[in-house]
């Protein structure tokens, strides 16, 4: 990797990444702040949800129960909002880091310096991974801070280790999705095309997952999407096979990033 390029790319993207990280942190703190009000009336809410169709509850993570704080945020935050934020980051940043530089021609300057394409692509992949680490790191810390601050560290149930597991799997899910978007970006000459294709793949995965959860008949769809490996509700209730999911996601991510870098190394660039 090329340290100069890494620092420069982080500097250029810092503001955007920090916006997402602090947005995410603020949101999770807000959810935790809300919890005590809900935590006192969990029974009534659980009854209300039980009255709704099963599929809807599944899709939006309402069946995770409201009796623990991490159960509540797993459904309300990790099930939808965080997924949307990280999907946008993955699609947007992967496109900006490679396809955009190729499309606009700025890549010519990078490749005219004594570095190799492999190093440039690897550096950009690390920039994307760093962005995901920062956003997830800030979010996780905000979760723990919220627990100490609003839930007075133990007044309400909060299982720290499962919360950490959920964050790890979320990070690895987007490491894999980022890898796929990065692969698309490395293969594209056109910024808009890269954005369109990786956007379609990412939100396609998301939609398939949603459909599979809502309807029992379309259950088979879950084999077509990476989101199947990320079940925040099951992680916080302790019934998910976290290690297996992590291994698969890491492998998919590494494979996609490697393929992207190799493809970028060998192809013709219209610079």
């Amino acid at each position, binding site marked *: 990797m*090329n340290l*100069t*390029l890494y620092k*420069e790319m982080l500097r*250029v993207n810092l503001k955007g990444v920090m916006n997402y990280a602090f947005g995410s942190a603020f949101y999770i703190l807000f959810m935790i702040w809300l919890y005590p009000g809900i935590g006192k009336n969990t029974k009534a809410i659980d009854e209300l949800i039980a009255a709704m169709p099963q599929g809807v509850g599944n899709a939006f993570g309402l069946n995770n129960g409201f009796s623990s704080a991490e159960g509540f945020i797993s459904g309300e935050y990790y099930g939808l909002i965080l997924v949307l934020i990280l999907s946008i980051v993955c699609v947007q940043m992967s496109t900006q880091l490679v396809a955009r*530089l190729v499309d*606009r*021609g*700025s890549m*010519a*300057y*990078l*490749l*005219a*310096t*004594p*570095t*190799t*394409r492999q*190093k440039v692509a690897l550096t950009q992949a690390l920039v994307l991974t760093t962005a995901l680490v920062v956003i997830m790191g800030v979010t996780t810390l905000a979760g723990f801070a919220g627990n100490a601050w609003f839930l007075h560290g133990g007044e309400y149930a909060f299982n720290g280790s499962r919360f950490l597991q959920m964050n790890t799997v979320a990070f690895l899910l987007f490491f894999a999705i980022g890898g796929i978007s990065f692969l698309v970006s490395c293969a594209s000459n056109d910024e808009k095309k890269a954005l369109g294709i990786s956007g379609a793949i990412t939100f396609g995965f998301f939609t398939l997952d949603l459909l599979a959860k809502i309807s029992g008949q379309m259950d088979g769809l879950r084999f077509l999407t990476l989101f199947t490996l990320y079940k925040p509700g099951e992680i916080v209730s302790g019934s998910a096979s976290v290690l297996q999911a992590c291994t698969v996601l890491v492998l998919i991510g590494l494979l996609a990033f490697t393929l992207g870098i190799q493809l970028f190394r*060998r*192809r*013709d*660039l*219209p*610079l």
Partner: protein
Amino acid sequence: MLKVEGLTKVFSNGKGIRDVSFTVNKGEVFGFLGPNGAGKSTTIRHIMGFMKPDKGSAAIQGLDTWKVQGTVQKHVGYLPGEIAFIDEMTGKSFLNFMLAMQGIKDTAKRDRLIERLQFDVSTPIRKMSKGMKQKVGIVAAFMHSPEVIILDEPTSGLDPLMQRVFIDLVLEEKAAGTTFLMSSHSFPEIERTCDRAAIIKEGILVTVKNIHELQSMQRKLFEVVFADTADADRFAASGMQVEAREGNMVRVAVQGNYNDFTRETGKYNIRSMDVSTQNLEDIFMNYYDREGAMQ
């Protein structure tokens, strides 16, 4: 220093370059002339190692630029045809970044170049005009004192004064032993700096000649306005190659025979005279035609 051998690349639309070969010697300024879309940039992209040739090779200092990435660039300065930086940077931060990428700490040459080209480096790149971006690109190509400088249409967007400064810069670097390859679609630009030039058309290298030969081959159109219509008639009938006639104005083509032309015009009372600008095909019209007839 720089060698292109049998370089062939055909794109899916049938365009491309076919069997392009030439050599640029150390300390030489080599012009690469051709109309737009003739394959100049495609050739340069191969020399920079951005594309994999179908056949043939491009080498700088004996290193194949496609196969050996990451070492040869230390000796190369490059100005792309389309200037596009990373938008979020200012001119200064971009140049600092490029110096760091080159692994160079000495900023003296960069500062000297900025002063010569007179531009405000603190302007964000996205607010820069085309000419200003071109200047930033020129500084980036020259500032690490490379041994070979490759310039794709270097003067596009520069005003005449800055074109002059640019030519001086090239000549100074040349005197210091730097090798240049510079593409252009305008002959006058090449004429002032280059020792030799190649002409490329529709992906095929038409000729490589030294600049004096090319100068004698070029064809210029003079528009002469006579004070008297009768003079214009007599001049038009004098055996010069007349292209057009409008009242007192006669447009003649001159190729090498400048003496005949000045002798003829000297006989009459001239009101005004002008050289009309032409595109490359027109300048080397006879040359292109002859090549066409031979094929």
